[in-house]
């Protein structure tokens, strides 16, 4: 375990990215746990929180990117990736701030990534969630042809090639970090692998992504449209930045 806050830029290594919106209750413990289990730098992207999230994360030893407007989980994650690329990190790991991802599995994700056979490792727990969610997932799997069991998991590890694809302006107008992101990665012919990990239920509050049925409906429509618009774009074009 090592924490290098003394030098900038950090020219190698990896960072853990945690997008957080009003997660004061969990963020401190999470940053410490991530540092303890994996070492390296922890970057908390504070998605315009109105509570003490940024402060607590900072005092727990994280670098904080304070977003001045709320960009949502994906916008925040992308900010972290842009930062990581600029500061010279070669791998990033992403995890949710609500406590459903277990920091003790971070090393497993990183080890699978650095084995070099894949560009993105997804910590998957497809058995979580309600029947409705399972149904939605199988619907999107059929629609996209993505062979991914857990489409929405934010517990992932990316190498530099994947970071470059996702930090590009093309990925900026995505609203969720699931199907759209996976389609972009497939389009860039990157190799994805899922590894099974256990997940916990949220510690505090309800789901940030799906607070109501109206939002779920909007999500289903928006994501379906995205899938249909991207039909046939299965890696025929290589992303220039790669």
């Amino acid at each position: 375990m090592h924490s290098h806050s003394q030098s900038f830029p950090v020219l190698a290594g990896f960072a853990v990215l945690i997008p957080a919106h009003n997660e004061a209750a969990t963020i401190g413990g999470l940053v410490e746990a991530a540092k303890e289990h994996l070492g390296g730098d922890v970057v908390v992207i504070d998605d315009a929180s109105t509570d003490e999230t940024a402060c607590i994360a900072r005092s727990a030893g994280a670098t904080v990117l304070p977003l001045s407007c709320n960009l949502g989980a994906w916008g925040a994650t992308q900010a972290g990736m842009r930062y990581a690329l600029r500061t010279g990190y070669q791998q990033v790991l992403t995890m949710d701030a609500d406590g459903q991802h277990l920091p003790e599995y971070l090393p497993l994700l990183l080890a699978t990534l650095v084995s070099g056979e894949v560009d993105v490792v997804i910590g998957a727990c497809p058995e979580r969630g309600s029947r409705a969610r399972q149904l939605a997932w199988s619907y999107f799997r059929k629609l996209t042809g993505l062979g991914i069991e857990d489409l929405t998991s934010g517990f992932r590890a990316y190498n530099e090639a994947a970071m470059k694809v996702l930090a590009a302006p093309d990925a900026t107008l995505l609203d969720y970090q699931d199907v759209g992101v996976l389609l972009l990665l497939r389009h860039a012919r990157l190799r994805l692998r899922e590894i099974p990990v256990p997940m916990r239920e949220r510690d505090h509050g309800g789901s940030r992504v799906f607070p109501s049925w109206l939002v779920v409906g909007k999500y289903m429509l928006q994501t379906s449209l995205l899938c249909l618009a991207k039909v046939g774009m299965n890696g025929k074009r290589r992303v220039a930045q790669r």
Partner: protein
Amino acid sequence: MIDYQWTSTLIGLLIAGLILFLVRRDHLHGPYAIWWLVVAAMVVVLGAFPRLFDTVAPLFGVAYPPILAVVLGMGLLLIKMLTMDLERSRQERKLRRLTQRLAMLEALLEKERRNRPAQKEGGAGGNGDQVW
């Protein structure tokens, strides 16, 4: 009672005047001003010569000439709305990237500040420009 032609010509001129005023006051950005000026010019022309549609409509097989004006007007409005949404998406992307960039810069500044708390005369951060 004045002629209808004068009413519509006057409306067109008023719109054109308003647009020029808004551009002059810096309320309307260049490309948008041009679109609206073209609209005002059309209103003036069609207002002055309302018979234009009577000659054009039969060429398009439209039996009742005023309908052509309505259909064209609605079509142009739809195009205008679409271009507005395109512009909004472009701006949204720009805003998101700027927000991200600002956060990155703030993090950098914070880091620089922490790294050298004692140096007060240092001025701007040394390698910051190269990195960003």
